Structure formats: C-alpha cells, structure tokens
C-alpha cells in the first residue's frame, strides 16, 4: 500500500507544485539579492551595466554611504531606540500579564481589559497630541522620547502574550512556592519569570525587530538629522536621490536591513510562532 508511506516517492502533482512554490519563493528572495549586485559597482558602471555581475569587489560605496548618511550615528541611534523599547516594553508587560493571569479577580480582569484597549488603538490616532505633549515636556526630538511611546504601544500586545503564557504554567508551582513561604514578589522573580523565558526571548526578538524597523513614529517625533534612525536616513536618502545613486544607496540599505534579516534567519521559528500566537489569541 502506498497509502501508508505516501511521501517515499514524490507524485507528479507534488513535484509540479513544489517547483511552483520554489519559483514563487525565488521572487521573494531575488529583490533581496539585487542590492548586492549593485553595491560593488561605481556609479558609471551601474549606469551602463546595472545587471551584470560586478567586475571587482569594491567597498568604496560602503565607505561613501557611511559618510553621506552618517551610518555610524544612525546605527547607534537605532540601537539605543531598540534597546530602550525592549527595556520599557517587557518588564511592565510581564508584570501586568503575570498578575492578570495568576491573581484573577474582577478587578484584575478589568485592569487587563483596560490595557488591552491599547491594542486596538492605531498609533496614527494619537500622533498629534503625542507630538504636542512631547514638545511641552521636551521629549520631542530625543531618542527616549521615541522609545517611550513605542513601549506604550507595545505593552498591550505583550501583556496579552505574557498573560496567556503564565496561564499555561501549572498552578501547583506557584502554590508550592507560596506554601514554602516565598512572598508574592519572590515567587514571581525567582520561579515564575524564569519559567517564562521562551516568552521573554520572543518579546526581545520581536520588539527589537519592530523598533529597528519603525518609520512613522520616528518620522513624526525626530526632526534633528543627528537624531535620525537608520530607517529615516535610508528614507531621506531615497527621497533626495531617488534610485539614481543605487550603488551607494544599496550599501546603506544592506546595512540598515542586516540586523533584522540576520535575526530572522537565526530565530525565524520563534518569530513565526510568536506572530501567529499574537493573532490567534484575539
């Protein structure tokens, strides 16, 4: 019976469909390979033979882009924003998620839903008052003025994830710790939080990727060129030169996309799992 081991030999439909899917996947990957085709060329070489393989590996575009876009400053700013977003999103979300999962009462449920409201509010809605408030409190055009609201937008989602994670842990664990005389705080920090490491790793990964890629909030809140994140630099470069300076531009783009792409290649299984979990929960 071939039924018992249907995948020992590939049937024709399976081969055809797999080939089709591979071709489709290539269309996803190819545009990502293109920048590497241009980045090693001079402007002149690019103008005449944009599609040929580079004749020699030149790093001059990276150096030029580094200077023109101030990539070092951009990377540092983006890193500060991403780390700040991680530090401000995860602890409040973990605490609120834990309490709403493990100390369930009418009050904590109500508080949880009050947090969850934020999940349905588009960032666009609050941009104007947010900006004005930041100007008043001298937060506008600073990096912490960017990652603080970013964290506020992320907290509802991660509270939801932590809540469902803590609910999945066996109740006996917590009771045993409490009977052993551990206080509420030490039960959380010594026993429950370490158990939530998978959720925390996921949160670090996704908050980092989200903060690293942010565009709208940075565009509105940052005005001084020195404070620009990588994405703003890439976008303003694109605006001022279009795609004419492709080789230099490709260099800046490769550097600005590299961290998220590398993180994705390493952690794609978690990223996919976490992304789905977020959508399924609601």
């Amino acid at each position, binding site marked *: 019976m071939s039924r018992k081991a249907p995948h020992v030999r590939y049937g024709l439909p399976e081969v055809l469909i797999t080939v089709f899917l591979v071709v489709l996947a290539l269309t996803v990957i190819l545009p990502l390979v293109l920048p590497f085709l241009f980045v090693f060329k001079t402007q002149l070489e690019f103008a005449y033979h944009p599609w040929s393989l580079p004749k020699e590996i030149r790093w001059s575009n990276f150096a030029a882009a580094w200077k023109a876009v101030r990539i070092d400053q951009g990377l540092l700013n983006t890193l500060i924003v991403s780390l700040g977003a991680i530090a401000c999103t995860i602890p409040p979300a973990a605490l609120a998620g834990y309490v709403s999962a493990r100390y369930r009462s009418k009050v904590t449920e109500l508080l949880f839903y009050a947090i969850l409201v934020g999940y349905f509010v588009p960032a666009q809605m609050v941009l104007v008052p947010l900006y004005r408030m930041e100007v008043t409190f001298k937060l506008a055009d600073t990096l912490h003025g960017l990652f603080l609201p970013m964290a506020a937008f992320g*907290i509802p989602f991660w509270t939801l994830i932590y809540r469902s994670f803590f609910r999945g842990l066996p109740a006996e664990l917590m009771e045993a710790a409490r009977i052993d005389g551990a206080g509420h705080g030490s039960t959380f920090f010594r026993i429950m939080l370490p158990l939530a490491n998978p959720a925390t790793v996921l949160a670090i990964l996704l908050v980092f*990727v989200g903060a690293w890629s942010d565009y709208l909030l940075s565009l509105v809140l940052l005005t001084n060129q020195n404070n620009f994140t990588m994405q703003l630099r890439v976008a303003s470069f694109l605006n001022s030169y279009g795609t004419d300076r492709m080789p230099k531009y490709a260099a800046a783009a490769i550097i600005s996309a590299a961290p998220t*792409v590398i993180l994705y290649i390493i952690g794609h299984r978690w990223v996919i799992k976490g992304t789905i979990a977020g959508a399924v929960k609601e």
Partner: protein
Amino acid sequence: MKLRGNGRRIHDPGRGLFIFLCMIPAFAFLAIFLYYPIEETFRFSLTRTAGLGEEVYVGLDNYLKLFANEEFRAGLLHVFTWAFWSIVIQLPLAFLIAFSLSYYVNRFTKPLKAIFYLSNVLPSAITAMLGKFIFAPKYGIVASIAGALHWDWLASIDFLGNPDLAFWAVFAIATWAYTGFPIIYLMARIEQIPKEIREAAELDGASAWRYAWHVVLPDLGYPFRILAVLCTVGSLKLFDLPNMMTTGGPGNATVTLGITLYRHGFVNWNYGKAAAIGVIIFLLSLVFTILQLSLGRKKGESL
C-alpha cells in the same frame, strides 16, 4: 495558612499591594502615552488652533471640511479600494500557497515557509526602496526585462509616475511584502486539522483540490475573518509604503488616510483636522473589526 485555588489567599494584605505594584508600570506608560493622547485627539478634533496656539472650539467643523476636501476623499477611497483588493487578491493567494505547503510536506516545506515570511520582517524603508527600483523607468527591473524582450511599450512606462498605475504598483509591492503573514497564519490553522480527516478523505478518493475545497476551506472561516479584519485595519493605517514610494502622488493617486493625517498634522500644522482624521481612522477600524467578526459567524461559535 489557608489557600484558595489558584494561589489566592484569604487575609493576605500583601496581595492587593503586589497587584497594585505590578500594574503600575504598564498603566503609567499607557496613561501618559495612550489614554491621555486619545482623550486629547477627540478634544483637538473639535477645535481649531488660531493665532498663538489658542484653541477655538469649532464643533464638527473639522469633520465637515474634511469630507469636502478632495485629498481626504481620495484617501478614503484608496483605503477601501486597498482593503477590498487585499482581501480579494492576497488572501486567496495566501490560501493557495499555505494549502500547497501543508498538503505536500517534504524537505522544501520548512525553508519555503521561512522564506515566504521573510519579506514581512524587512523594514518598510527597504521594501519601499526595492519597490521604487523594481518600477523605476529605464533601469528598473520591469523596464530592464521589457527592454531585453524588446517590449518598448512596457519599458517606457513610468509606473510610479503614472496616476493610473501608481496605486497598483504600490499595491503589488505590498502584496509581495505582506502576503507572508496570511500564509503562515493559515498554515498554522490547516496543520490543526486532524490527520485522520485527510486520511479518510484520501481513502474516499478525494483529490487534493476537492479536499481543499470541501474540507479545509470550510474549516477556515474564523481565520479568514481575522485576516479580513487585519487587511481592513491595515489599510486604514497604511502609511509607510505609499509615503516612501510615491509620497501620495502623483497628484492624489496614492494618498491614504495615514498620509492625509501626516500632511494635515505635520506639514500644514493643522492639528484639528489631523486629529479628526485620527478619530475617523479609529472609528472606522472599530466598526469594521466588529462588523467583520460578527458577520458570517455561526450561531454558538465563540469568538
């Protein structure tokens, strides 16, 4: 020591304090950066800033002026056109890919799944750059391929500069960039269908096509509704790609609600109108979320 279920303790004064302390950080962030600005958005939307930052109450004037504004109406139309086509094109495409990937499991399945989601994690600035380059006249990807085939009519088209085509060019890039999510989401749902059901269908001689149509699709009602909501809400918020690829142009060809909000609020510094657009985006996403989740919901099926 008395314990009552779930670690709940009777006569435990520390409990209330602990809950309080744990909730404080989250609520501090939300109160300052979300609740307060939400309230302010509603208030701003009813005012006009006159002179030196003085706010004048104008009632619904901002809203009425917006609906008379050509750019805003274009944005509204584009947002709904975008939502409609992303549901009609991206979701069936995602289903085809997700079903094929989970029906024929082989050594390619896992890498393919990872690749299809890859474009979702790219920063939108990079996606926009790729999009601009794909559609650039003369040396862009489309133009180069057309040139190689001597299809001069195609090679000479400036997709992003043509008011009739720009919207679709941006939409095509978004389809490229964002179909990964519905693919992995539908796959996760399809994989939950018990293996026995598929075996039974195969024993009955059902083809892959019939299995997909009669068994898998009916089971995906809920995920499709969720995805439709996400498409609609995503369109209402749409900003990054059209702003970077075409800055809403040429003319108003790719203007979205997000772009009109940005222009009113941060280019023309007209807070009242920008806040009114923010309120409209919020109310529309609320209405469509409720509508799409309740429509077509079977009786007794939980949300």
